């Protein structure tokens, strides 16, 4: 092996390492994106796990208005509504809002609600201690449920943030296997 080939080989290996590294980086962007958004709330995603309510100080000097919007994704047949469309809360205060879902169709469907907060930067101040969005709902044909959602607004919320919107989108996530199992049951 000449010097030239040796040099070439070591350089090629380094370059291939960059290529593989960047291919991995493309996929690493997926968890990185989630971590980054969790920390900053940039994309309006809220936490997927229940928050614990620790007797926080209730800031009675001000109100934050929280608006709720429900929508169903294309192809989803449920009726999905919220009882109170808008609540005015003190930061730190515990609140409950009830959502209702009804499956008017003739087959059982598994639904998954995905929340999104707008403006996105408000997402990290929304703490949910109980939410139907943490798990999937299974509704038999014609079944109706009331789904409570309990939350408090973090007292750390900036003073100029007085209004934010929480939107729930309901998706049909029934897989083929689930469909078979549900029909049998």
């Amino acid at each position, binding site marked *: 092996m000449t010097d030239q080939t040796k040099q070439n080989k070591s*350089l090629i290996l380094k370059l291939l390492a960059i290529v593989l590294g*960047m291919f991995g*980086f*493309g996929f690493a962007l997926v968890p990185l*994106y989630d971590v980054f958004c969790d920390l900053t709330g940039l*994309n309006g995603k809220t936490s997927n796990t229940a928050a614990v309510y620790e007797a926080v100080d209730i800031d009675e000097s001000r109100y934050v208005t929280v608006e709720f919007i429900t929508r169903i994704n294309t192809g989803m047949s449920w009726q999905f509504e919220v009882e109170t469309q808008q609540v005015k809360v003190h930061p730190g205060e515990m609140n409950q809002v009830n959502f209702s879902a009804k499956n008017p169709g003739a087959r059982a469907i598994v639904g998954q609600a995905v929340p999104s907060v707008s403006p996105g*930067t408000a997402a990290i101040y929304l703490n949910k201690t109980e939410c139907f969005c943490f798990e999937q709902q299974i509704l038999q044909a014609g079944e109706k449920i009331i789904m409570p959602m309990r939350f408090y607004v973090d007292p750390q919320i900036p003073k100029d943030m007085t209004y934010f919107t929480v939107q729930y989108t309901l998706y049909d996530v029934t897989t083929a296997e689930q469909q078979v199992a549900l029909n049998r049951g």
Partner: protein
Amino acid sequence: MNTPTSEHHHESHDHHEHHIPKGIKRWLYTTNHKDIGTLYLWFAFIMFLTGGAMAMVIRAELFQPGLQIVEPNFFNQMTTVHGLIMVFGAVMPAFTGLANWLIPMMIGAPDMALPRMNNWSFWILPFAFIILLSSLFMEGGGPAFGWTFYAPLSTTYSNDTTALFVFSVHIMGASSIMGAINVIVTIFNMRAPGMTWMKMPLFVWTWLITAFLLIAVMPVLAGAVTMVLTDKFFGTSFFDAAGGGDPVMFQHIFWFFGHPEVYIMILPAFGIISQIVPTFSRKPLFGYASMVYATTSIALLSFIVWAHHMFTTGMPVFAEMFFMLATMLISVPTGVKVFNWVATMWRGSLSFEVPMLFALAFIVLFTIGGLSGLMLAITPVDFQYHDTYFVVAHFHYVLVTGAIFSIMAAVYYWLPKWTGKMFDITLAKWHFWCSLVSVNVLFFPMHFVGLAGMPRRIPDYALQFADFNKWISIGGFAFGLSQLIFLALLIKACRKKGEPVSAQVWEGAEGLEWEIPSPAPYHTFETPPVVK
């Protein structure tokens, strides 16, 4: 620039001539950088005409409002495949072809460092495009989600030929990565003695930086298409909100590739212009070192500006500010380049041969495209310009009158060196002037309809845009026809018609490639020249 001197050896290559195989096998098995360069360039030109034919379909449909010629779904396939072909089939392979022909000759190397891989990186490319183009004739048609294949258009709402699209993009990416590795290894290890980094011609410099961009971002594109593939066919939910994914994340990953990609398509053009302007100004390039640093800083900045393609996705103001300012920062090194070209011409002994005409058109029109880019970088006004024909005008000014004009300038500049004969100058001038006028009739009014609110990628439009669109279409047809003059000229040149040229070809041309005889022998610099 310095004056390299070469002490080579016209006697050494003569005995090689009889080794050249004849017929199709020469081209299939070739490992010669000049043959592979020629293959790349012809392939790029065929793809340019193919993608151009699709643009003609688009412009014919948009000639008047209403739906006349094609269905909306086919129209969408045309815009999508036109973009994919022009980016991955025309511009990038053309630059790789020029790199193959020129880099070894410019740095005094006998060939590329990895000739066998070079053959592979070219020959997988036709298969990629056969796969992509054949999907147009399948049930449901080819990709119709735009060349940016945003999720969920490419996942939930696409048809099954998406798998073919993904596979062809994988092959294109593999080809580019192999080509880039080859360029880097060649430049690092095969420079002639005395060819130090800061003596390298700028075309070599810009290609070296481009090659690094390629190996950094093509794998990310491969990852993005793979995620689309698994989301669509294998039940993952990278981009599906119902499964915990995020469609906006697709845009982040795509544009993390996509923005460096646009510099992959323009940095070699900067190199070409930096070779041509000094020759026809008969002056060394003004600010050689600053050109190198400007190119490097553009490449580095390209990694932190991707979200300026996504201002309307609902980013927080702080992020919008960051991406706006970072984007505007790029105009500084770009301005340095334009300044240097103008300063090179200042008080030069100018002459206006065809390569210089294209180079001058490049400088003026690329700057127009750069300025509309600067307008788009301003976040608040981008909300108005976003997804309108203003964006179409912007990127066609930088890609057609930028990248493609530079490729044409390069072909005219080095063609006599390749064939040994001067090309048909009359035809070349016709090609230049027809292209110059028609390209502006084609793309300039797009600024106006864009500002007035005409959305891109839609087969129909409101009545008030009718007059401008008629002119745009006429310009488009004229530009398309003008390229047939180029085709005629190239066929004539390849049949070795025309006056023989000297080794230097152009008075004022400097560099190692102008010291070897014209036409360039099949094997050059088997004994490296010494650069002083």
